[in-house]
């Protein structure tokens, strides 16, 4: 177990040494040379493998050895092509390979889930509604590199994988990345833009196109299963059975920057422990709903 502190998020990429040949050999052997033959049939697939190697390098090697330089994917790929004997013959084509890969990446379909807390359907006294209606919240995730944006949990579909299987798989992976509840109203404005900013300045990715449909769905306050083709986003909605016990979800204290820390529990993992996220029921309802549709 390594102590990371907060330093991992502010890694400077202008200092540090390039990875030594030993490390590049390891990455070449670990991620590239021994994969099934089908994975080496196109450079798109090879660059996906190098992408995994790059993440491994950034999250394992650089994290354990701060002397190592953090690299952009382009620089990392360049380095691997130079140092890996099997790739060296193709160095002359690297620019084209990289360009083709970027075009290919943007055509890879992704699937994910918008997870809401249960405040949207809580019964509210009509007289109190105007002042005390609890604001509906949705779950966003953020990669941990500096400058990463918040987005709905989603990821690339595997070959032949169906949308809902991918969505379930992505929800299951939520244990491994930073997650947080966010008030939907603070994510506005809705638009067709992939990149947007919420009213509180939060950097968002692929959230704005879903907001119109999402707010309309919440406004009806009816748990429906229907397909919406609002704006440019296709959304299938389901309701989790036995959603996590009533009561306001505990806001992730980390998002209230600068606020007083009132609880005595400052042990590591506090926000994770306090997190109201009944993944089992969410996953179960996703599976059930797709059996019914």
């Amino acid at each position, binding site marked *: 177990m390594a102590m*990371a502190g907060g330093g991992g998020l502010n890694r400077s990429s202008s200092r540090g040494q390039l990875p030594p040949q030993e490390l590049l050999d390891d990455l070449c052997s*670990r991620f590239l040379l021994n994969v099934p*033959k089908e994975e080496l049939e196109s450079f798109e697939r090879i660059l996906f493998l190098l992408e995994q190697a790059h993440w491994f390098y950034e999250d394992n090697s650089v994290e354990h050895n701060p002397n190592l330089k953090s690299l952009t994917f382009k620089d990392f790929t360049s380095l691997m092509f130079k140092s890996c*004997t099997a790739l060296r013959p193709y160095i002359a084509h690297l620019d084209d390979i990289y360009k083709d890969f970027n075009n290919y990446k943007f055509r890879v379909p992704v699937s994910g889930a918008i997870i809401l807390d249960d405040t949207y359907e809580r019964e509210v006294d009509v007289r109190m509604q105007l002042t005390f209606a609890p604001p509906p919240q949705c779950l966003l995730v953020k990669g941990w590199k500096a400058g990463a944006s918040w987005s709905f949990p989603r990821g690339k579909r595997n070959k032949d994988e169906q949308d809902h299987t991918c969505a379930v798989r992505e929800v299951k992976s939520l*244990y491994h990345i930073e997650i947080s509840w966010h008030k939907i109203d603070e994510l506005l404005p809705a638009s067709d833009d992939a990149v947007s900013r919420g009213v509180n300045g939060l950097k968002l990715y692929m959230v704005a196109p879903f907001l119109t449909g999402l707010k309309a769905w919440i406004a009806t306050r009816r748990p429906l299963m229907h397909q919406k083709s609002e704006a440019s986003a296709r959304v299938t909605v389901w309701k989790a059975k036995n959603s996590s016990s009533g009561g306001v979800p505990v806001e992730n204290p980390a998002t209230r920057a600068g606020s007083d820390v009132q609880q005595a529990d400052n042990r*590591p993992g506090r926000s994770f422990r306090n997190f109201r996220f009944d993944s089992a029921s969410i996953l179960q309802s996703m599976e059930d709903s797709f059996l019914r549709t």
Partner: protein
Amino acid sequence: MAHGGGRAKVTPNLASDGEGTRTLNLTVLQRLDPAIEDILITAAHVTLYDFDTNVNQWSRKDVEGSLFVVKRNAQPRFQFIVMNRRNTVMFFFSYFIGFLLLSDNLVEDLLGDFEYQLQVPYIMYRNAAQEVIGIWFYNTQECEEVANLFSRYAVMMSLWS
């Protein structure tokens, strides 16, 4: 270099140099363990599972990658190693401290009393810590070859360990 619609796409041909790959694999493994002498067999892609005897259920371990059965010039004579590709970082963030839990390579000693069971595409085994572990092989032929190797070397393992 000409760009535009007429550019032919480059097709890679990486799998051609088997000997070079073998040498590189050995070099990489020896940097982790200098006593490794030889790689007996390689399986391109495996995924590992833990069996929880309390609830009779398999769960996925955080280990996935290529599997190498190796021979060493010291005890234990035989091992198999999975070079982990999984980069699973469990990141617990509290207001003050962040922790990282990383998943390592898997190294298992192959001793004379090594218990395993072949059920293509799985090999299940019990390790020294009495854990029951399942290895899923992407390639069923490699699964059979590895099990075959275990059975052929069982005698040698019991003599040498």
